[in-house]
């Protein structure tokens, strides 16, 4: 509706208002996610017959006396109405919570996601402890797949129909089809155990301890994870690029007398990359909540490995914590993508 557009450049206030709106929406989204997660982990088990005592028995160990279990129920307020429990859960995340475990008090500063069933450790510090490994893995792979995927996609589109294009797309199809545990194990077997170029599984070392080892241990996981995504991005970029190159405004750019190089980089790529940016943000956000398969395959002690172990051990608070943590990253990524989109595509701001 061109007629209803306000004249002049969209002012700074409009952009700020847009960002504020999106931030509020993101916070609301997190609230909804926390409710849904809480309901899934507490409401559904209770509906299926799980009692507060059953829940509490997870904390006190195998051969607990009924008194000990009752004590745990009291201390953890598991017999309160669910709404009160949810309120306490949220308060714990926002302001922290102190539990009196037996004679000593257990402090759980904000953000408090409770304590692990398995080792009675607070969930949040454990998560923070695991985060650097996941961050290293996800960010490194993201840079790798974005650069290779987009470049291959662009070259394939520009050389459409040539042997190069067909070869790239065949490899990309393989990349999309092969699961990470397959490519991961094959690469480990070849490059780590047979050729010995890279260290094997479980050799991840924090960058603060040994940067060289950190890098060497992550090369194979990065490539394995990036291969899958690069293949996907190459196909997406190629399709987007082919579509964009047929647009009228590309013809206009050529009609102006622009060099083909400028037409591609300045006009075509910008339009092609915008939707890719959205997908990239979401993919990265998803991975920051744990690259479960890659971390398991290479035995990297990241968030994904943490959650998979927690699921195996029925460690409810940890699963709940990671779920919210992952949701936080996705909402955050979504928010950043929305704002970036508004910067890149001027049509977004007014709509």
């Amino acid at each position: 509706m061109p007629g209803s557009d306000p004249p002049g450049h969209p002012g700074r206030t409009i952009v700020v208002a847009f960002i504020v709106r999106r931030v509020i929406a993101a916070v609301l989204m997190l609230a909804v996610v926390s409710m849904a997660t809480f309901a899934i982990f507490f409401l559904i088990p209770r509906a299926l017959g799980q009692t507060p005592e059953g829940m509490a028995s997870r904390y006190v160990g195998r051969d607990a006396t009924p008194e000990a279990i009752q004590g745990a129920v009291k201390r953890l307020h598991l017999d309160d109405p669910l709404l009160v429990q949810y309120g306490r859960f949220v308060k714990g995340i926002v302001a922290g919570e102190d539990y009196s475990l037996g004679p000593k008090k257990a402090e759980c500063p904000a953000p408090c996601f409770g304590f692990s069933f398995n080792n009675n450790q607070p969930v949040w510090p454990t998560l923070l402890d695991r985060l650097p490994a996941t961050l290293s893995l996800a960010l490194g792979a993201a840079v790798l797949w974005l650069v290779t995927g987009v470049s291959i996609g662009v070259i394939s589109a520009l050389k459409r129909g040539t042997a190069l294009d067909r070869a790239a797309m065949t490899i990309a199809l393989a990349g999309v089809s092969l699961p990470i545990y397959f490519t991961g194990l094959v690469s480990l077997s070849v490059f780590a155990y047979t050729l010995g170029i890279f260290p094997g599984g479980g050799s991840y070392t924090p960058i603060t301890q040994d940067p060289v080892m950190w890098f060497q241990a992550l090369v194979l996981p990065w490539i394995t994870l990036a291969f899958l995504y690069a293949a996907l991005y190459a196909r997406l970029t190629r399709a987007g690029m082919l579509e964009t190159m047929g647009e009228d405004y590309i013809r206009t750019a050529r009609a102006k007398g622009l060099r083909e190089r400028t037409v591609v980089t300045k006009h075509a790529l910008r339009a092609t990359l915008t939707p890719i940016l959205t997908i990239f943000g979401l993919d990265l956000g998803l991975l920051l909540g744990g690259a479960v398969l890659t971390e398991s395959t290479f035995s990297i002690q990241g968030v994904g490995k943490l959650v998979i172990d927690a699921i195996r051990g029925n460690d409810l608070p940890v699963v709940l914590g990671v779920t919210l943590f992952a949701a936080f990253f996705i909402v955050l990524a979504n928010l950043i993508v929305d704002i970036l989109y508004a910067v890149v595509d001027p049509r977004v701001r007014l709509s």
Partner: protein
Amino acid sequence: MTTQPPESFLELRDLRIHFPTEDGLVKSVDGLSYKLDRGKTLGIVGESGSGKSVTSLGILGLHKGGSAKISGEIWLDGEELVSASADHVRTLRGKKMAMIFQDPLSSMHPFYSVGAQIVEAYRIHNKVSKAVARKHAIDMLGRVGIPQPDRRVDDFPHQFSGGMRQRAMIAMALSCDPELLIADEPTTALDVTVQAQILDLMTDLQREFNSALIIITHDLGVVAELSDDILVMYGGKCVEYGSAEDIFYRPEHPYTWGLLGSMPRLDRDRTERLLPIKGTPPSLINVPSGCAFNPRCAYAGRTEGKSTTQVPELLETEGGHLVRCHMPRAERRSIWDNEIKPMMEST
């Protein structure tokens, strides 16, 4: 065939643009020749698929891809473009020859401001600072009639109305004072009230810049007002060429009669039906043998059987008026004077 540079500013000699496809060879332009001088306007008329847009894209070197086979000669201001290097033709695009496209919304990049797109066009061919180019862009927007150009220059295409966008496109095309301006259906996507304004603007600017103007359209009404000469295209070929008077008052090709008859006119009774051309435009892969128009021509029977066996020549009937038709000239004249013209003027 001569290879001497012509005297005309623009001259096409036997231009052919063929696209090999899986279904066969598409002869989009098949032996087209015409001349155009500075300050003159040529209207190219025809149905969609007649090759009128491909011709113009061919002049700019923008006919798609390396698959197209182009032959013949395109002379622009003493330079032959078909044999020129792609990079040389690129340096002429935007500077020496510019194009205005049909749909100004899709023809402008949605992510760059209108001003930025004009600035870009200007700075390709003029080594000036961004500030100078911006001033020029504002100046151009003002000249094409955009109010408050110093404020609108930073607007994005979607913030402009349809007519404004087409004005901005014109400003962009004219930013480097091109000597040849090609407008491909410049008013088709616009409201009727805006159409006239845009056409007036283009003729005003043409007079000011003394450029050669080609207007491509399927709307005879548009070319009637603007053109010095009119070229009627059918199936990749020119079927009739002449001055605007020739085409409107003394047309000799049955296809031109059809175009004139299917033109809505206010001075006719609304109950009277238009006279549409029956059938559909020919496939450019399987062009009908003989005269490409013969399956749709009401007079194909009057050619002694030549219409399906021989391709008619484009021959001069008088004073630069060219017609591609098998019927003898006297017969064409008599059909127009005695059958078609009275029918069109009957109310």
